[in-house]
């Protein structure tokens, strides 16, 4: 593929820290070659005028359930880590290799290898072969590995291979078939529910096992205060544990389940208001270092059902950036931190040279108007399905243009 050189001028460059600085960025081929206030276009360059918009790294979405290019591009996502919960699951080198190629050139898919065969939580899958085939991390999928011995062996093996294990934090013995958090809401609606502590129990065990194994452990979604306290303490004593969350869990609490809204059925389920506030606090103090979309477009056949029968998940790629921007406007985090949560930190978990605007990195660049207002409309979404709980909600922040490897998308 032929790339001409590209210079984006007159923008505000989002760095690792501090306020965005005026400057330009130049790319040759698929790489960033210069960045800063003094960079100017050279003869023959394609020049894009950012007109004062943010020049930000393309987002790295850690944990999506479908490859949905239009939605990812709308949301400024240039790389997506695909969950192994596919049909069939990503538990073989061939399916990993196939998935890794499926988005190129304008979207890079980083498959997450299934930790166990068929995601059944019993036999460890062929992780080393899948790593060679392109897997950048290992995931237990949308479920817990119930056997502690298996989990320990898995963590030790992945530590040896240098792969992070991405775990789902819900003790399955307690969670059972629950579809909601045990609370007044679940009681009134008569929904099968489980105590929120199912999360802290799973986290406590997996942290203990990761400490034994010396493994790197990432919890894709942490949604309760009790679990966040455990992670905060573990991070303080140097355990290689990180935590992520999806916007639904810092935007909504379980009161959103009123009227059996299946667009609010998630795994893990929405929690009570005190936990939602604890999640925001943990984003603010750095305990949670990754925000991901959990993008899972589901049509009516999966969602127009009684609540307990509906599939979990939301189409989140398009609203990932604007909903994270609410945290910036609320003063929870600054703009540079927002992009670390959305790009730099997830790229680090995957071990890929992306997620930050640095010379030598892949030229994955998003031009962002962080304040641009728009209204989410589930009927007009770019995603394969419009299952968002944020329908008709006004948001701010929109991607104006996107480059993957120096080539303009769309």
């Amino acid at each position, binding site marked *: 593929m032929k790339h001409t050189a590209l210079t984006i001028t007159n923008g505000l460059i989002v760095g690792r820290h501090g306020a965005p600085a005026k400057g330009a960025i130049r790319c040759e081929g698929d790489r960033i070659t210069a960045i800063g206030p003094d960079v100017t276009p050279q003869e023959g360059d394609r020049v894009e005028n950012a007109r004062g918009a943010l020049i930000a790294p393309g987002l790295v979405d850690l944990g999506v359930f479908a490859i949905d290019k239009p939605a990812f591009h709308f949301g400024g996502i240039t790389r997506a880590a695909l969950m192994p919960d596919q049909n069939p699951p990503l538990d073989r080198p061939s399916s990993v290799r196939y998935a890794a190629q499926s988005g190129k050139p304008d979207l890079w898919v980083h498959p997450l290898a299934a930790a166990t065969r068929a995601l059944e939580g019993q036999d460890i899958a062929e992780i080393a072969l899948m790593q060679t085939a392109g897997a950048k991390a290992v995931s237990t999928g949308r479920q817990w590995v119930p056997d502690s011995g298996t989990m320990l062996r898995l963590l030790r093996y992945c530590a040896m291979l240098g792969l992070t294990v991405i775990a789902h934090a819900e003790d399955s013995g307690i969670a059972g078939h629950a579809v909601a958090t045990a609370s007044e809401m679940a009681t009134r609606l*008569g*929904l099968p529910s489980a105590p929120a502590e199912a999360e802290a129990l799973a986290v406590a065990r997996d942290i203990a096992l990761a400490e034994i194994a010396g493994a790197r452990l990432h919890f894709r979604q942490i949604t309760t205060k009790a679990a966040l306290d455990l992670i905060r303490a573990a991070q303080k004593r140097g355990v290689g544990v990180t935590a992520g969350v999806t916007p639904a869990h810092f935007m909504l609490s379980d009161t959103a389940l009123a009227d*059996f809204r299946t667009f609010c059925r998630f795994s893990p389920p929405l929690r009570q208001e005190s936990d939602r506030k604890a999640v925001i606090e943990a984003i603010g103090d750095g305990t949670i270092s990754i925000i991901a979309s959990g993008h899972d477009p589901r049509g009516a056949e999966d969602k127009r059902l009684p609540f*307990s029968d509906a599939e979990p998940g939301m189409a989140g790629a398009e609203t990932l950036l604007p909903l994270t921007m609410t945290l910036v406007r609320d003063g929870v985090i600054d703009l540079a931190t927002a992009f670390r949560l959305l790009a730099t930190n997830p790229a680090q978990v995957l071990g890929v040279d992306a997620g930050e605007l640095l010379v030598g990195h892949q030229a994955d660049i998003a031009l962002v108007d962080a304040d641009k207002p728009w209204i989410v409309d589930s009927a007009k979404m770019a995603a394969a399905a419009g299952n968002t709980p944020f329908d008709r909600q006004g948001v701010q922040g929109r991607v104006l243009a996107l480059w993957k490897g120096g080539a303009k998308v769309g």
Partner: protein
Amino acid sequence: MTSANPSSQSRYPAGSLAFPHRGLLGLAGLAPHEILFLLDEAEQWVELNRQPTKRVDHLRGLTIINAFYENSTRTLLSFEIAGKRLGADVVNMTVGQSSVKKGETLIDTAMTLNAMRADAIVIRHASSGAVRLIAEKVDCPVLNAGDGQHEHPTQGLLDALTIKRAKGDFVGLRVTICGDILHSRVARSNILALTALGADVRVCAPPALMPTEIERMRVTPFHDFDAALKGADVVMMLRLQNERMTGQFIPSPREYRHLYGLTLDRLAKAAPDAIVMHPGPMNRGIEIDSNVADLAGRSLITTQVEMGVAIRMACLEVLTRRARRMEGWA
């Protein structure tokens, strides 16, 4: 706290005295005076049902479909009798749970029923919220005959009517509901009705069968049945819903009876004139002893069944008034 749902929102002008709800999906959205209105309306049907000729023609020409996605004998029969005594054409559709649980079928069936121009649809379904889902897709009033563990509003109303006729007033009345509260839609509808009407409701169950934060529904939770019974004016026993239990909730039926079975000795701890109720079907010898269930003058279990027909007649008659263009309602 559950917000108003679109299908039960008022379509009547402000100031109208008409019953403002389109269907009866639950008691959660009903104001106390609306509950009392339905109880009062039922009184005439209690009288009618005691006459040799038990039929009027209020609903003549209307079609009522009873769509039952879950096994039922008494509720289905009660709704069928209620519709027929009002002069309606009643059709029963009972569907094996397995064939329609998944997929669009539920909504497709709803749209099919709607296309047949039913004037009221009565639905029972094993999943909480399923009845509301159907109600959003049909044009006629929908009556919830039980959805999962959510609500069973006509049962709540018929129990309230039974209590009202026996005790007169609800305010300060001590009602003890004992049994599988967690899985019981009957308990939820009763709690909503009785607390709205001013009763002092106690719920009693072992921890595994007690819903989280049930006290937020303005009831007092008990694990000790004897303590819960003390001074009770009404003792309502619930069936163990083994079919809804996944995992072991109680060690054995006889151990359950040991702790929570209503025996004559236990009943003596309640008020001397306490009445005994059970929504049926009973597990005699487990949650209730036969000599309590059949205790003349105290056990109102068959009265509940009688009130059930009257309440369902009242609900069907009131909810079809708009379709029948009754003055002040059309």
